[in-house]
Structure formats: structure tokens, C-alpha cells
């Protein structure tokens, strides 16, 4: 079997985003999703620092450092986009107006708990940003991550050992080996890369997984 590349993962997430969706893409891996959104669908990207209708990066030399995304990269505004202040921006999120939020993660539990803001190491300087607001605010929260750590441990877990970002907030997990729905009933395998079996996936994760 061949794990998906990060770009393949991004393309797969993008494929699942419907026309007209309001979407927030988290910092890091989720940002790649923007590169694969289908050209024939209008999808509205929100950035929590105060814009809706975020467009692609500007051409080099065209950057406007007062037009940036949450990762502090220069972006553009689509025709029809608009600006707003931080309280309104997080009202969009917390108030359930965003359809889909895509986040990276250290760990996700089979019940949808998310850990993505703090490794829990004693000397780490904590920084949360908008992670907790994003996790619990959107109608659906997707996670994108490699399924296994470099040491081979599953990041999809029965119970998160890292400090939590939010409880029962993730609905779907896109990994390089499989896609899972998570929630009250535990994890269900939606899709797997070719050549991977459900039994092998159970062995890799150490979890009781049900098939879709």
C-alpha cells in the first residue's frame, strides 16, 4: 500500500467540500486544501482575522501586509468578499455560521475529542490562538493528519493523552491511510488507501473500528 501524500490528502478533503460552503482552513496542512478546491464550485473561505471570501496568495511583489490570513501570509480578497472585526469574526465561528472547519491535530479520539494546541511538555510555551474557537464552532470540524507518528503510534486514539482543544467536536478525520467518521458511536472507516485491510488498520491503530 502507498500512503497518500499531503497534497493528495488536501485534494481529497477539497473534493468533499460542497458548492457554497463557508469554510475555515486552519494553519499548516489544512491551508493546502485551498489549492485543490474545485474550480467549478464557489466556496467561501473565512479567515478568523477578519475576512470572508479569501482568495489565493498574491503574485510575488504584490503582497499587502494589511491583507493577511490567520497564518500571517499575504492573501487576496475575492470579488464579493468583505472585512469585519475580530468579535464579528469569532461570532461567525462560535455562532455556528461556518459550515466546515479543517484543522490539523496531534490526536483525535474516536469520540471526536481534539488535541491540537499543546504537546503538554512542561517547558513548552502554550499558545492556543483560535484553535479552541474553531474546533467547537463550525457545523462540521474535519481533521487532517498523518495517521501515525514517526514512531508509529496512532494519532487516532481511544482517548487523547495530550491536552484537549475541544470535546466531541470532530466529525471526520482525513489521514494518509484512511478516512474516519468519529463521534458518539466511535470510529467508522469511510475509506482506505488501496491495499490496506480493515484488520491491518485495526492493528496499526489498536482500535475497534467499524467499516462504513
Amino acid at each position, binding site marked *: 500500500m502507498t500512503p497518500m501524500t499531503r497534497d493528495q490528502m488536501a485534494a481529497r478533503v477539497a473534493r468533499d467540500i460542497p458548492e457554497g460552503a463557508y469554510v475555515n482552513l486552519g494553519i499548516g496542512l489544512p491551508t493546502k486544501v485551498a489549492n485543490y478546491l474545485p474550480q467549478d464550485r464557489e466556496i467561501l473561505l473565512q479567515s478568523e482575522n477578519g475576512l470572508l471570501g479569501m482568495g489565493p496568495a498574491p503574485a510575488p511583489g504584490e503582497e499587502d501586509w494589511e491583507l493577511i490570513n490567520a497564518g500571517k501570509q499575504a492573501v487576496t480578497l475575492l470579488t*464579493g468578499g*468583505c472585512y469585519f472585526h475580530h468579535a464579528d469574526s469569532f461570532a461567525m465561528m*462560535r455562532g*455556528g*455560521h461556518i459550515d466546515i472547519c479543517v484543522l490539523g491535530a496531534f490526536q483525535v479520539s474516536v469520540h471526536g475529542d481534539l488535541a491540537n494546541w499543546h504537546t503538554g511538555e512542561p517547558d513548552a510555551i502554550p499558545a492556543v490562538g483560535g484553535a479552541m474557537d474553531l474546533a467547537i464552532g463550525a457545523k462540521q470540524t474535519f481533521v487532517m493528519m498523518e495517521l501515525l507518528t514517526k514512531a508509529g503510534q496512532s494519532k487516532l486514539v481511544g482517548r487523547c493523552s495530550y491536552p484537549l482543544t475541544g470535546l466531541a467536536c470532530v466529525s471526520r478525520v482525513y489521514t494518509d491511510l484512511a478516512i474516519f467518521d468519529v463521534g458518539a458511536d466511535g470510529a467508522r472507516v469511510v475509506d482506505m488507501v488501496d491495499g490496506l485491510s480493515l484488520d491491518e488498520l485495526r492493528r496499526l491503530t489498536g482500535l475497534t473500528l467499524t467499516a462504513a
Partner: protein
Amino acid sequence: MVDKTVATVDDAVADIFDGASVMIGGFGTAGMPDQLIDALIARGVGDLTIINNNAGNGESGVAALIKAGRVRKIICSFPRQSDSHHFDARYRAGEIELELVPQGNLAARIQAAGAGLGAIFTPTGFGTLLAEGKETRNIDGRDYVLEYPIHADFALIKAHRGDRWGNLVYRKTARNFGPIMAMAAETAIAQVSQIVPLGELDPEAVITPGIFVQRLVQTGASA
């Protein structure tokens, strides 16, 4: 292509159901979505809970909705006016329930709903009849009343111009409750004087970002 515009006011209100909660914008007649209300009356559904600053003036708008017997309950700040006779009659007959809310608490509770807050401690109303039976708390030496968000199934609002993504700008004091009601309703429906091409509204001056608007209909300038 995302296109939230609909052709007629009847289309705009076609999914409003019996027993729905409906926020209606406007302060007096400024910002009152009169044509959407007329369409709602024509649609014939009843048992509605209406959230509006007032309880109708004269013969049109919310007053006409009340006159037609479609309103079970009204949540408002100022029902009694010189020309609120349709409300007065129904209220005195015990045919309409009234929840009276101080105007600023009404606005704050609607905003809290749109912003996903669970409750707010507000100083307004503390020690008055309107806080009777409500939880209170002294915080840093000041007294507050706990008030809960007001959500609604629908919001009917009036704006000046809008585009197919639902971005809205308003006109003068007709803005009033429109932006916060759009945020607090499951389905926000705007009547606008003019639908303009995408990009015509200044992105710095959009008052209601399209994310808060599910449907809009051009009705032309109204009186």
C-alpha cells in the same frame, strides 16, 4: 455559482411554517420589511412567535400580521403606541402572549444568539419587575441579571442593497436590528431595494457579510 437571490417575496417566505419563531427587523417603520410581511400574511401560516422592537403600528407590517390572527406570542420592548390598536385588542382579549424585554437587552440577547453565547449578565433591568424571578449576580460591585440568547427560525429584514452572496448594506437608521437578527436566525431573508452585481459593494463597508444571509429578494425602494 452561489446565488441567494429569489424572484419573488412569495418564494422568499415559502418555507416559513406554522409555529415558527420569526424575527422582524425595523424600529417603527424604518427598516420594517413590509413586503416580506405581506407575503408571510398571504402564505397563511400562524401560531407564530414574533420578535420585533414594537408590536405593530397602524394597519401594515407587524400590525397586519397581528390583525390577521397569526401571532401567538410577541417578544418586544415597546408594544404600546398610539397606533398599536391591533396588538392592544388581541392582548386585552388574552389572544396574544407578550414577553417584554428592555430594548438593549433585546439587542444583546439577539446578538448573543448570533455569536453562540449561552447567556449574558446584563445590568439592565436589575431590581425591576422585568427581572423578577431571574438569576442575578453582583460582579465587581455592580448588579447584573442573567439573560439568555434569543434565537429564531427565520429573520425578515430590510436592507438597501445586496448581492448574490447575500452581502448587505443598509440605509440610515433603517439598519437598526437587521444585522443582528440576520446573525441570530437559522434562515435570514432580506428584502432589498436593489440587488447589485458581486463586487459592487465596498468590502470595507459591507455591514452584513453574506454568511449571515440565506435568501434575498429585490423589492425596489419602499415608502
